[in-house]
């Protein structure tokens, strides 16, 4: 750990708005690795051994603030994504070491309450662009946080249940329909309508990153 005097002029501590944005994004990156596909309602969101997403977020923030600004080759946003993902994977690795792998035979001891490590690696492999380009991953997560804010502000309770369940929880329309008292077709129609509406509203939101891979450059380029 570095001596505190070195951090007295840490650029992120001098820009709290940017730091808060980065921490929000790191929290989302960690959640995506920890919970993806397993975020059932009522599930206790902690790893085997009691480590929570907030614990990992704290580790990631300390690592980020310990990063030497002089050695920065990319943006702080890109660094934060890499750190958050690595910390989440390390936590999963610790929690799943010696425990059941994904696809293990029935009856195999399985004390893992969250995503088995193999699944988490598979998640990162799904989107090669996000996996290899942390700045793009940062922007994608930032878009999701804007959508989430708009959903909280604009959607009715039932619309929120549908949107949150499908979009973030990965739940099936049939499962949600049984809970809400609609048909699966009705749930799907609500989701599509809400997703289109929110996306249109988000594109007008100044906090919504939309410049990725455009001639104008990336949002994060302005932040470096």
């Amino acid at each position: 750990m570095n001596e505190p005097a070195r951090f007295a002029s840490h650029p992120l501590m001098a820009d709290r708005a940017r730091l808060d944005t980065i921490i929000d994004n790191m929290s989302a990156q960690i959640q995506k690795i920890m919970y993806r596909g397993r975020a059932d309602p009522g599930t206790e969101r902690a790893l085997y051994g009691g480590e929570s997403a907030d614990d990992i977020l704290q580790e990631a923030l300390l690592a980020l603030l310990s990063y030497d600004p002089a050695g920065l080759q990319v943006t702080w946003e890109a660094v934060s994504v890499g750190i958050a993902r690595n910390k989440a994977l390390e936590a999963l690795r610790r929690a799943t070491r010696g425990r059941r792998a994904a696809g293990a035979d029935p009856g195999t001891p399985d004390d893992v309450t969250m995503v088995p490590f193999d699944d988490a690696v598979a998640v990162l492999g799904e989107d090669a662009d996000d996996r290899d380009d942390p700045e793009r991953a940062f922007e994608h997560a930032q878009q999701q946080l804007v959508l989430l804010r708009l959903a909280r502000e604009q959607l009715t309770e039932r619309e929120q249940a549908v949107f949150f369940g499908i979009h973030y929880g990965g739940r099936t329309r049939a499962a949600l329909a049984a809970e809400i008292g609609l048909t699966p077709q009705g749930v799907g129609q609500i989701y599509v309508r809400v997703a289109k509406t929110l996306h249109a509203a988000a594109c007008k939101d100044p906090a919504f990153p939309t410049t990725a891979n455009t001639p104008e450059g990336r949002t994060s380029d302005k932040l470096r």
Partner: protein
Amino acid sequence: MTNYDDPVDAVMLAFLDYLEGTMSGRPTLDHLTEDDRRRAEELMASLEAGRGIDPHASRPSVETLLAGTDLAGLLPLSPAGADRAADPANVRDVLAGVDARARADIASGGTVVYGYLDLRARFVLMNTDTPIADDEARALAERLFDGDADTTRVGIVAARSDELLTQVLTAADVGCTVTAPRGEPHAQWTPPLPLAMAARQMLEQCAPEWESADFDRALSEPLDVAAIAAEIAGRIIGRESARPYRGDKARAYRALIGHEAVFAALVVAVAEHGTGAVDLEGEITRMTRAAA
């Protein structure tokens, strides 16, 4: 309802089928116009990117994340809490909302006393961003423990932290201790927590649990002095008259049997008006003569 004139709707529903495993491949976008294809791709990418995010989560503040860590010293440089410090009223208000059974009052010296049954904690503000229990804080806690033997816990509250970060200490935490051979402290301090959480944790860990008291019903009813006096007088007269007295004394006690009410009336008169209002000697002489 979805807009069936919008071809993106059908693509999104097909994409949901694919994600739910009821369709083998991703939907094709060949039939869409360029604009529609771009919209569909963005919506599908958004749906994939959102998976796993907890829509109900709220992350801790920077102050909470850094509190108690090696980087806690960064916080005083933060402008967030530099110009606003909490006062005892803020502390009292936060504590008052933790548990309706407990009381929070501002005491002399600016400490806030938080009490529940015989648990008493004192919360004191320090003008810092983090409740680092340095020598000054340790000395302050010792003074508070020494000044009130009933104090069970002392909470050091960082007045300039957003969530009033609090380090709760026991007398053992600040007293003289024997260092372990390895040089480690014999006990680890609890981590600093936001004030409300620290108070709640304290209540969960050390709030007393008193059994419900079942008072004697007779004692909870209004006191009937006359009945009690008559019962006592009857018991004394009965005991004395049973003794082998001879002569006038034996006759007097036996004559008093059944006249306990006379004594009861005398006791009631004394109880209501005091001995000054009743001529005790005269009354006793009158009763003695009557008995004789």
